[in-house]
């Protein structure tokens, strides 16, 4: 894996095609998609249902591989990487934020946040780093030893953001991060995202809410597997 260089695009798609072979016939989910994301950008991806947003998110998150074309994450071509290397890339370079928070119900808040750190270090970690990140996302100290089920949706999403940030990723990938929150709580999360971006975190966010997309600096619109804007 190459070291991320500050002048290198943090993510780059070159002529990427993704085809799903189905019994009824092949479905082209992404059709020759080319774009790049520079370090420190805040991008939203918008498009109607079935336009290819999820496929694009999966490819950006190294959860899936392209049928053709090249994808680079911080200068590293992902096409030929093994499952093990892709997993390490996700762990070290990408932070995921999901619509439904997706915290681990059996772990408390500190354990949830430090989980990716433990994956990286392969041993128990100093919980102080987890506390620092949780404080950075404005979560009250008294909640740190609670389980996710004891927290509100907004608090859970803050924990999810902290977990995504714990390994200092190059990119934060967000899938409808406010989709499961009321507008006030959602606005709080978006303010947090804006603040993180202001401090240098690259954010790519999939949404169909124009109001949420307005927080980003650039919007990629996608329709029928092609970038239209």
């Amino acid at each position, binding site marked *: 894996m190459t070291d991320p260089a500050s002048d290198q695009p943090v993510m780059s798609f070159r002529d990427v095609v993704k085809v799903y072979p189905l019994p009824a016939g092949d479905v082209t989910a992404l059709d020759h998609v080319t774009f790049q994301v520079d370090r420190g950008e805040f991008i939203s991806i918008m498009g109607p249902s079935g336009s290819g947003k999820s496929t694009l998110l*999966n490819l950006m*998150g190294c*959860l*899936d591989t392209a049928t053709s074309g090249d994808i680079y994450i911080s200068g590293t071509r992902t096409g030929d990487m093994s*499952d*093990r290397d892709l*997993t*390490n890339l*996700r*762990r*070290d370079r990408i932070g*995921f934020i*999901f619509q439904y928070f*997706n915290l*681990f*119900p*059996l*772990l408390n808040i500190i*354990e949830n946040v430090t*989980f*990716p750190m*433990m*994956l*990286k270090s392969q*041993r*128990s970690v100093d919980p102080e780093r987890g506390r620092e990140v949780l404080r950075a996302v404005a979560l009250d100290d008294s909640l740190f030893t609670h389980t996710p089920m004891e927290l509100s949706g907004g608090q859970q999403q803050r924990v999810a953001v902290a*977990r*995504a940030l714990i*390994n200092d990723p190059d990119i934060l990938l967000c899938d409808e991060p406010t989709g499961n929150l009321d507008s006030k709580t959602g606005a709080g999360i978006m303010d947090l995202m804006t603040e993180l971006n202001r401090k240098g975190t690259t954010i790519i966010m999939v949404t169909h809410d124009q109001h949420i997309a307005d927080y980003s600096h650039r919007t990629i619109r996608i329709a029928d597997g092609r970038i239209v804007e």
Partner: protein
Amino acid sequence: MIFWEIAKRNTKIHLLRSFLAMLGIVIGVVAISTMGILGNSMVLAVTDSLHTVGDSVIVTPHTGGTSRGFGGGGGGLTSLKITDQQLQQIKRASAPNVAIPVLQTSDRMKFGVGQNEIVAPIYGINPDDVPDLLKLTDGGYSRAGSGALIGSQFAKDNNLKVGSRISIGTDGDKGTLRVTGIIEERGMAFDVSTDSAIVVTKDWFDSTYNRDDYDKVVVKVKNLDDLPIITAAIEKQLNKRDKVVDVMDTRKTMATIFQAFGQITTFVSAIGGISMIVAGVSILNIMMMSVTERIKEIGIMRSIGAQRREVMSMFIYEALILGIVGSAIGGVLSLLGGYAVSSLMLQTTKYLLVPSSLVSIVYGVSFGIIVALVCGFYPAWRAANLSPIDALRHE
């Protein structure tokens, strides 16, 4: 490690489910271990009750293979006694080892005025041969015709000691014998079972019961490697044309007995093993359920950087916890099970804590853990190989 912690917490949070999975393992371990303990205790009990240490060749008249009953019938080429001539042939074939002719009957006897008559076995053995065959706990060997040795159980049951008198026959019509020694307990034996019997001199036996032949000949073999050679030599000498005598190598017979017990133990343990297979299926089922319930969680773990082997380890740990805890409980309960079964079937628990019995528990516990691991492997492998995308989409 965090995956061990998750496995532990998941087992705890689904306590009833985990308990049911463990219960299968507990039953399996108890079944295997208890059957093993029972089998081993049976072998030890038989070993203890068999005095014969496998150093003898026993020659008896051939009785098998015809319609003739044990004591009835007659005629033909075979005889139900061993003649003096046959004894000499046996002695020649087994030289320089000692061949001890034994006479045997049973008769009424009484121990004092007002006492009830009982019927007990009587052995007639040449006084010179007795020390080669029997050990005494009290008194001494007697050469006098009126002297008798008695078995330890016989002495205890009838309250007899050295010097006591025994009247033989109905109202003592065959004479009175004086106890000169108490024979050490021998249990059940291939040669002579003297615990509840009396041993008299051959001369007294001959004159009292008008006998000039023998019921069996016991050859005490000094070098155990000679056992098959002597057996073959006696067979060759006496059964040249027709089968006249049955020749039994006690070591071989004991080996056959132990082999049979070993097979019985294996068989009953295998029946116990069936319950372990059922337990394994239960674990497989519960682990599959656990994987299905946690597909989304697996997807999240994989997406944020957990390797396949780490996801797999989490489920293997879970199976291991079920296996270890279930097997440990089963191991402890096996002791109770072994105690109960031994008490019930053998009327003794003295073989429960011997190493050869305890090893059955080790086998049972190990088998329990292995079954849990093997049955947890497939669900764990399946979890590890789920596509992260499909797992994340799972509702």
